[in-house]
């Protein structure tokens, strides 16, 4: 009979999966992810791919905001850097899509680190405004640097091919997206078991104390911006290759806010929370649309007001979630697991 998880060695404390149930669940999860595309409809795959891309972007943002405590409103801009870099390299220079994706990640990491420089002096709301400036500057550059980006016009990206097979059908791209999402999750989970990850958390919890303990604030903050932006750039590059088309309209400030909402609702400073938030913010509107379709068939009179009810419900659900579980969906999942594992002696 358990009443909680207790460690008697440092080694046990560092282990990622502590219980048998955890190990069983990860096996089930991997099996599910591998089996899903064979049973899913095309609509299901489209949703899964959108969730996968959003998960990578949300993990990236969570490294910066949730783990290092540096708030960022530049998410949309950094995604644009990734998408445009990948799109331009493939469309104009004919670089293979996997190579352009990697370069896009590195370029976004560099751009992220540059825009992270103000974080040494700025904190909290002031940093939010500085990163907001990054968002606006990047979108301004993208829409005005016509020679390179094509300005406000849509940039058409060729289909990603691998050994003569077109990769961006919903089914094939699923493997690309979820393979990379898995690697991103694995990297991030392990990052916070290293010296670097611990330094990020120390900065979040008390930056002065961290500095006193020998954490080089400037270096680690920039590193956090770079690592975070690397994954955000990956999400952007995947959008470019998945959809064959890049326009600035997809990377506006709304996107930055949406991703912040994802990680807040999902759970700050948590990889699983990033996934929960990404899935929630993508699937809830889709579920509402499908629900309203059912309603429309049974009560045709409300047809005209359904879109507004849908919008209001979306907002309401988010508010209610935040009121009843401010620590996010991750905490709800944790509580649920604890309830069953520790029953009847939980406290």
């Amino acid at each position, binding site marked *: 009979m358990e009443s909680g998880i207790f460690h008697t060695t440092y080694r046990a404390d560092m282990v990622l999966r502590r219980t048998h149930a955890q190990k069983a669940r990860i096996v089930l*999860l991997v099996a599910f992810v591998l089996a899903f595309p064979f049973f899913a409809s095309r609509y299901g795959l489209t949703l899964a791919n959108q969730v996968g891309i959003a998960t990578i972007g949300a993990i990236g943002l969570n490294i910066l905001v949730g783990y290092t405590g540096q708030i960022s409103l530049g998410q949309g801009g950094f995604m644009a850097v990734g998408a445009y870099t990948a799109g331009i390299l493939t469309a104009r220079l004919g670089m293979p899509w996997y190579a352009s994706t990697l370069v896009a990640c590195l370029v976004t990491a560099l751009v992220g680190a540059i825009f992270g420089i103000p974080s040494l002096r700025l904190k909290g709301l002031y940093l939010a405004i500085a990163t907001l400036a990054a968002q606006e500057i990047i979108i301004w550059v993208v829409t005005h640097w016509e020679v390179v980006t094509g300005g406000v016009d849509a940039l058409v990206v060729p289909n990603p091919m691998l050994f003569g097979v077109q990769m961006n059908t919903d089914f094939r791209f699923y493997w690309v997206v979820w393979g990379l999402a898995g690697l991103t999750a694995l990297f991030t989970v392990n990052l916070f078991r290293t010296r670097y990850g611990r330094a990020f958390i120390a900065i979040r919890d008390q930056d002065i104390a961290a500095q006193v303990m020998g954490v080089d604030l400037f270096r680690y903050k920039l590193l956090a911006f770079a690592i975070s932006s690397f994954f955000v750039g990956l999400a952007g590059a995947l959008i470019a290759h998945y959809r064959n088309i890049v326009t600035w309209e997809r990377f506006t400030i709304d996107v930055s806010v949406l991703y912040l909402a994802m990680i807040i609702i999902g759970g700050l400073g948590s990889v699983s929370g990033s996934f929960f938030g990404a899935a929630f913010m993508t699937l809830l509107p889709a579920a509402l649309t499908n629900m309203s379709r059912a309603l429309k068939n049974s009560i045709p009179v409300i047809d005209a007001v359904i879109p507004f009810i849908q919008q209001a419900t979306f907002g309401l659900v988010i508010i209610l979630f935040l009121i009843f579980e401010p620590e996010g969906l991750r905490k709800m999942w944790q509580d649920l697991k604890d309830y069953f594992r520790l029953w009847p002696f939980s406290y």
Partner: protein
Amino acid sequence: MSGIRKPIQTLLAVALVASLLLAACGGGGGESAEPIKIGAIHDLTGPTSDVGTPYAEGLKGYVAWRNENGGINGRPIELISADYGYKVDVAEQLYTQYVQEGVVAFQGWGTGDTEALRSRIAADKIPFMSASYSANLLDMEAAPYNFMIGTSYSDQAIIALRWAMDDWKSAGNDGAPKVAFIHHDSPFGKSPVPDAQAFAEANGIAFTAIPMPKGVTDYVAELAQAQQFGANYIIVHTVSSPAAVLVKDAQSQGLKDSIKFINLNWCADEIFIELAGDAAEGVVGAIPFTPPSSPVPGHEEPDNWLKAQGSSLTEKGLHYSQGWWTMAVMAEGVRRVLDAGEELNGENLRAALEGIKDFDTGGVTAPISFSSTSHKGNSALRLFQVQNGQWVQISDYISASP
């Protein structure tokens, strides 16, 4: 750290089960003849909902009217549609969902979603119409299943330039006028610039393109730029509310007397007049869909239909008949497939649409023709001018290609 164990199963399964259940409900509507499924996305809540709502109502109105009158060869049209709030992600979700449910054709809306979907459309072979008249969508290789009902933005701009040249001469001036093209800073706004510029250069018109910056409350700086350029005419290509702000600014700056304004279709409607008030007087509109204030036979059916519901076409405005007739052209293609006794699928529907020659919309648009080499419905429109708060016809059909 709790890793990545998560109830994706539950969430996805719920969405999936819901959609399957709904598909099952939608399929067995109790009709004796199999319905013709057409998918559509509307903007009812997003940034273009002011014009998106009447357009969507027009699409739905035509379907309801047609079904009440026996459908297409006895088969009803089933319009499967939802609001997407001008979000490209949602448009992609709805598109794949509806294609999976077996729609044979699709009615889109904006430039963003239409461009984002075009490679999928080509791969899925789904004939697609939308309210985006960007000339990029006429590229037969990149967008082989996109059809355009309205006059393209490029043609609209060329027609506006043509009219400006004639007007300039008939006012007793020599040479060619100077024209500024003030546009929305987006793919939508910028798409006609290269074609308009080429036409202007070929005809000796001094031409400049000025984008309207986002998030500003007035356009005095852009007007000053046009004035400095010496513009005699300003072509406006944006949506109604910024266009109204622009002409109001022009009026308060005293520019309305020396510069003539020509608005392209998305800023030449009833909403523009309502928002601009007095400042709208004298503004010329390049409008591919005849406004209800100039009644034509093609307005009668939608008007009668609306009157039976206690509304009227005048109340709904020109975007209603735009949606109505866009759906009518799609229905004409479907009718041709059924008449020929062929299987109703995307390829046959595309071929049938390409066979449409001089389809009469009762004067709402210039006659519509498609061919296997061009999916541009027409390249002519009439010009209208705001007189006493109403759009009044001032020209016959002017074609972009003489």
